[in-house]
């Protein structure tokens, strides 16, 4: 497989978010406002429903991002919506999302999230999963890995990054008001980011 089926990725992401929505909401109840899984399930269902039937994959990402912003509720809507819109703009009107194109798209998504949310690595946010995922993906592609192998490396890096938020003290979002009491819990945004990257690996690994 040399190109990613972008609509299939968004559909798979919606499935994974729906399957883990209760877990995400439980994580969020510990240090946030307890709506992350519920919000994202609604947002990604809307994103999957907003996918155009055909056209370039960049357009599909922009449509999905718009739907996320409009329908998610909570801070994750603007953040994930911006990530997908920026990724879509990076792909432009390219007819397919190949390994190199996806590297640029993932980088643009990370930049968009950092810019909008103002979070850096170590702040106990989705950036702690997304940044290592983008780095792992980019490194794999530069070393000649296939899209599927690079996506799997990204998913594993995102999962490790999400797990590594447990000892961190939150510096962004509602959890930051808790100060040291946020230590010992994983960040729900990093956990949902890991699901999105795992959905990417699922999709990239399937034969067309």
């Amino acid at each position, binding site marked *: 497989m040399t190109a990613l089926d972008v609509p299939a990725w968004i559909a798979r992401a919606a499935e994974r978010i729906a399957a883990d929505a209760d877990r995400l909401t439980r994580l969020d109840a510990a240090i946030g406002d307890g709506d992350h899984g519920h919000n994202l399930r609604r947002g990604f269902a809307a994103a999957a429903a907003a996918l155009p039937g055909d056209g370039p994959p960049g357009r599909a990402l922009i449509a999905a991002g718009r739907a996320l912003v409009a329908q998610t509720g909570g801070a994750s809507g*603007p953040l994930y919506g911006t990530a997908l819109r920026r990724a879509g703009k990076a792909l432009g009107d390219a007819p397919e999302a190949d390994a190199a194109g996806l590297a640029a798209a993932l980088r643009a998504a990370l930049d968009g999230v950092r810019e909008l949310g103002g979070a850096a690595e170590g702040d106990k946010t989705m950036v702690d999963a997304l940044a290592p995922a983008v780095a792992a993906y980019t490194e794999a592609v530069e070393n000649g890995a296939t899209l599927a192998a690079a996506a799997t490396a990204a998913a594993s890096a995102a999962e490790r990054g999400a797990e590594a938020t447990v000892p961190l003290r939150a510096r962004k979002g509602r959890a930051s008001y808790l100060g040291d009491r946020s230590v010992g819990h994983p960040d729900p945004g990093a956990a949902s980011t890991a699901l999105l990257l795992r959905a990417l690996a699922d999709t990239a690994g399937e034969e067309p």
Partner: protein
Amino acid sequence: MIGIVLVSHSRALAEGAAELARTLGGGRAVVHAAGGDADGGLGTSPELVEAAIAAADDGDGVVLLADLGSSVLTCKLAAEDAAGRVALADAPFVEGAVAAASLAAAGADLAAVRAAAEDARNHRKIS
């Protein structure tokens, strides 16, 4: 006149702050509230924010004030999408709204209204 939109997770908070800002702004300021989610519960509705911006804008521009989290991010996106016409003030919600309404009613431009809201952060309440 520059319009002002107050975005809060709570409809009651947004409407109360808007009433206060409108009154302390001499009754002339145009202040709209976009509070809560689409069903009136706690949250942020991009749709309500967009509608409030449209209602507050007479062509001169709109300054946004947001309370927390998703309200701030939703306003940042709205300001980004309408750069030059809509600006988000990094300001305390109530004091910033009152300061912005006062300046807007006095005929100040977008940059001055936003600056007044942001300067409200420096006003001490005690001593």
